[in-house]
């Protein structure tokens, strides 16, 4: 009986596990190995120890890439999570009508793809003739019409963050809404009866129950924003002056253009480490805050 059960189980799980190992686990292990070699595609990979990593830490381009990635990610996370939480709190209010339709409107950008919408946002951000410029002109802000949204060094990361926020806030709103619905209604109503105001209800009743989901959303939002290649590719291509030359761009450039595969792998490994460390630390910090 026991033997039979084990065999059945193996039959069911092995196809997927094999695929998973080949296309997900193996790449991570390979990235780990190649990081310590001076590998170029098509040649053997001589072991160089930690040379790639020491070079990376001294490489100004790598530092620019980390800075650009962090700038965009932090802007996108603060904006996206903030907007999502506010919208979810409004939509969860029992007096708001047609909440389902509002939610749908907010959610639609999530199911579109980066390139089509990137094309649209290119048109939005154009100087003079762009949609944003022309709306600003209609509203009377004629001095802002000439704004270079995607080529100004200060504005470019913001422009990309806005695009990311537009595309992903719907998802986070959905997560927050689900969590808010899970807060028991009688607890909320009991606190209302006891004279708690809206802010107190949020601070002392809902917030403690929503901390785990907030960690989850921040982690997902941050890691996603850190790894995004598409919005940068579509809007700025890494410019101006490297302000949006984020990690994924640095990585691909080193691999395909400079043919430094080992070096690119090392950068990928650091990138991976950053994402996982952040996820780990965020969940720890939140767990401690709860207990």
């Amino acid at each position, binding site marked *: 009986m026991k033997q*039979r059960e*084990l065999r*059945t*189980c193996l*039959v*069911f*799980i092995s*196809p*997927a596990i094999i695929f*998973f190992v080949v*296309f*997900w686990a*193996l*790449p*991570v292990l*390979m*990235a780990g190995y*190649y990081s310590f070699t001076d590998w170029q*595609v098509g040649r053997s990979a001589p072991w160089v120890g930690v040379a790639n990593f020491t070079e990376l830490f001294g490489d100004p381009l790598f530092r620019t890439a980390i800075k650009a990635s962090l700038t965009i990610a932090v802007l996108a996370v603060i904006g996206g999570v903030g907007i999502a939480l506010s*919208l979810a709190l409004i*939509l969860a209010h029992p*007096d*708001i009508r047609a909440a389902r339709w509002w939610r*749908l*409107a*907010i959610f*639609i*950008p999530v*199911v579109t*793809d*980066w*390139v*089509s*919408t990137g*094309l*649209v946002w*290119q*048109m*939005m951000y154009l100087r003079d003739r762009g*949609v944003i410029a*022309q709306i600003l002109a209609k509203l009377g802000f004629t001095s802002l019409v000439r704004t270079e949204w995607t080529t100004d060094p200060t504005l470019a990361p913001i422009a990309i963050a806005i695009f990311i926020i*537009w595309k992903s806030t*719907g998802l986070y709103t*959905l*997560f927050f809404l689900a*969590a808010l619905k899970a807060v028991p209604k009688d607890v909320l109503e009991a606190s209302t009866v006891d004279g708690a105001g809206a802010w107190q209800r949020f601070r002392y009743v809902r917030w403690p129950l929503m901390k*785990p*989901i907030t960690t*989850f*959303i921040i*982690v*997902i939002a941050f*890691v996603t924003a850190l*790894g995004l*290649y598409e919005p940068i590719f579509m809007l700025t*291509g890494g410019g101006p002056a490297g302000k949006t030359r984020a990690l994924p761009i640095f*990585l691909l450039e080193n691999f395909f253009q400079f043919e430094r595969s080992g070096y690119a792998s090392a950068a*990928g490994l650091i990138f*991976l480490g950053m*994402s996982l460390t952040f996820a780990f630390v965020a969940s720890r910090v939140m767990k401690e805050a709860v207990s």
Partner: protein
Amino acid sequence: MNAVATTVPTNNGPTMAPRRSISKHRTRRSSVLFRVFCYTVLLAAAGFFLLPLVWMLLAAVKTQPEVLAIPIRWLPSRWHWSNFGHALFDERFAGETFARFLLNSMIVATVTALACVLLSIMVGYGFAKFRFRGREGLLWVLLGSTLLPFSSVVIPLFIIVQRLGQLDSLGGLTLPFLVTGQAIFLSRQFIRGIPDDYLEAARIDGASETWVFLHIVLPLSGSAISTVAVISFLASWNQFLWPLVISSSQSNFTAPLGLSLLGVGSSFQTDYQIWMASATLAMIPPLVFFLILERPYLRGLEMMSGVK
């Protein structure tokens, strides 16, 4: 025998009625000012999220000079529906049409969705209903893989697919996404809800394991199937970096990859209205799929967040 279902039934039907009536009381309590504020915020948000898409739809049926006219024109003077025909069938990509790219995307996304459903239901069943050593650890690895930034593994993945001889092919576009940690995790969550008694009863009656899977597990996994199908279809359709890395001949381009050849700074003619028509066309299949399976999709996403 292990305990019955592990999930707590959330059916609180009888207690709903009194709660509703308390909510009604609250309706009178929230002030007009508060509601005006809420609806203003919602209206602004809906404007922000929908305006680019509405503008795109309208631009798709304009003439080229109308698209970026100064001052801005919202409605086209005449609705040029033929723009969509030109977007689809003009051979503007070195002899290939955008229709071909859409077809490629359809094939890749459909195969991915089908494989994802089959593989993840199988493995999800294995995880949910069998005990084996290392099960929890494996589950954590699968879940952790969803946090992996794709761009950080794209280089080794490229090498693996190259070794398999699948560079620049539709197969290569599909292979790495035939199963994802996310799909496995979701299936397992759903299948855990199937009562063990059903499976045991069939086994005691002498049913084979294949029979149990085909006649009990599969039919009861309806929501898992639709959730995984829609999530993997959308994820596949939205892939851009991977096709960009492995596809070189235009006959193997997906819709997003083809679209990326257009755009500001590209060497193509600035046929803005055609760009917007193409972008609209590329958004339709995932949008239709999403609207058909909205409920299971949203439920699946909520499940991923661990709320349910």
